[in-house]
């Protein structure tokens, strides 16, 4: 599929439903800080405000470090679309997945990059690099393990989640290197490793119901309309394997 066709289809799907409409509709206000791109090997991060004091982080497609993307078998476009695809799946799956995955939308912000869009999300409260969820939010960790296993998360290190100790909320960050295909690299799959170690790899009935809904959908709940065919095929194969085995994917297997 042509990149412009992919982004056009995703824009259309977002227009149909996106619970956090402000991410799509609120006019751009100002950039707070833009950093990273001038340094080789670092993804560009842009902190900005949309009108209404909506504080967001924006990852421009052209700000993704191409060597890092390549190491995970991704392109600039697939990495950006993966961010949005993860949120769209989580939203379609419903509770608890839509509570632990941060909403991300595809949006073009010409003030940052006139050439291509990027992934936009609100800034959330919390700290990275915390192990607290394993002690204090076990049910979220169980859900995170299922979600990561299904979407083929390729790197869920402790810097890729937020822990808000005030609310006890876990938020999964950074799905740019997910939807891996067989043979792609994986590292640090903390939640699925934890669930296997707990001997809780057997899927819950609610998780099996999610898999059934995904597999009975004509277009993988919308993903096939805009996302890379090989990544959709890999997702479908994982869902089938998980449904049939009634277990998480074996660790590191995509």
């Amino acid at each position, binding site marked *: 599929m042509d990149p412009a066709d992919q982004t056009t289809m995703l824009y259309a799907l977002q227009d149909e439903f996106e619970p956090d409409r402000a991410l799509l509709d609120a006019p751009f206000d100002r950039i707070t800080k833009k950093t990273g791109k001038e340094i*080789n090997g670092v993804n560009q991060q842009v902190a900005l405000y949309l009108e209404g004091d909506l504080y967001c982080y924006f990852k421009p497609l052209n700000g993704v470090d191409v060597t890092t993307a390549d190491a995970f078998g991704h392109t600039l476009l697939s990495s950006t679309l993966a961010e949005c695809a993860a949120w769209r799946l989580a939203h379609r799956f419903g509770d608890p997945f839509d509570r632990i995955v941060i909403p991300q939308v595809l949006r073009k912000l010409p003030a940052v990059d006139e050439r291509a869009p990027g992934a936009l999300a609100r800034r959330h409260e919390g700290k990275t690099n915390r192990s607290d969820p394993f002690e204090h939010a076990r049910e979220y960790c169980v859900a995170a393990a299922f979600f990561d296993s299904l979407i083929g998360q390729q790197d869920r290190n402790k*810097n890729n989640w*937020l822990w808000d100790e005030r609310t006890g909320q876990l938020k999964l960050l950074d799905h740019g290197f997910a939807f891996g295909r067989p043979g792609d690299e994986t590292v640090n799959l903390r939640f699925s490793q934890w669930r296997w170690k707990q001997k809780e790899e057997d899927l819950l009935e609610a998780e099996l119901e999610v898999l059934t809904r995904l597999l009975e959908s004509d277009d993988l709940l919308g993903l096939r309309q805009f996302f890379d065919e090989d990544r959709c095929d890999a997702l479908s194969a994982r869902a089938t394997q998980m449904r049939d085995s009634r277990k998480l994917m074996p660790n590191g297997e995509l």
Partner: protein
Amino acid sequence: MVKVEFHTAEGEVVATMAVAASGLEKIEDPQSVVDFTVNVIGVHTGKAVAFDDDSEEWARSLPRAYRNPYLFAVVVDDDNPVSPVDQKPMEIEERHLVGA
């Protein structure tokens, strides 16, 4: 020797460290954000590397693990740096479906 800083998107530097081939030389990490158990895809090797395998390669590859706006790693000094890559930007025409 590889020196790494850990930044927030707001520009705050929350941790710094220096790593030699023999291991950790110096670290200032009051918030305990540096995770020495994290594996990274090596920038030279292309394979997963742990701190104990090759501490310098691990350190210079940290930007591949610490890569979100809440906290990202920046290599500020490196005796064996990665060659810069000429990254060609993509141009994607913005289209919206009629009636969507």
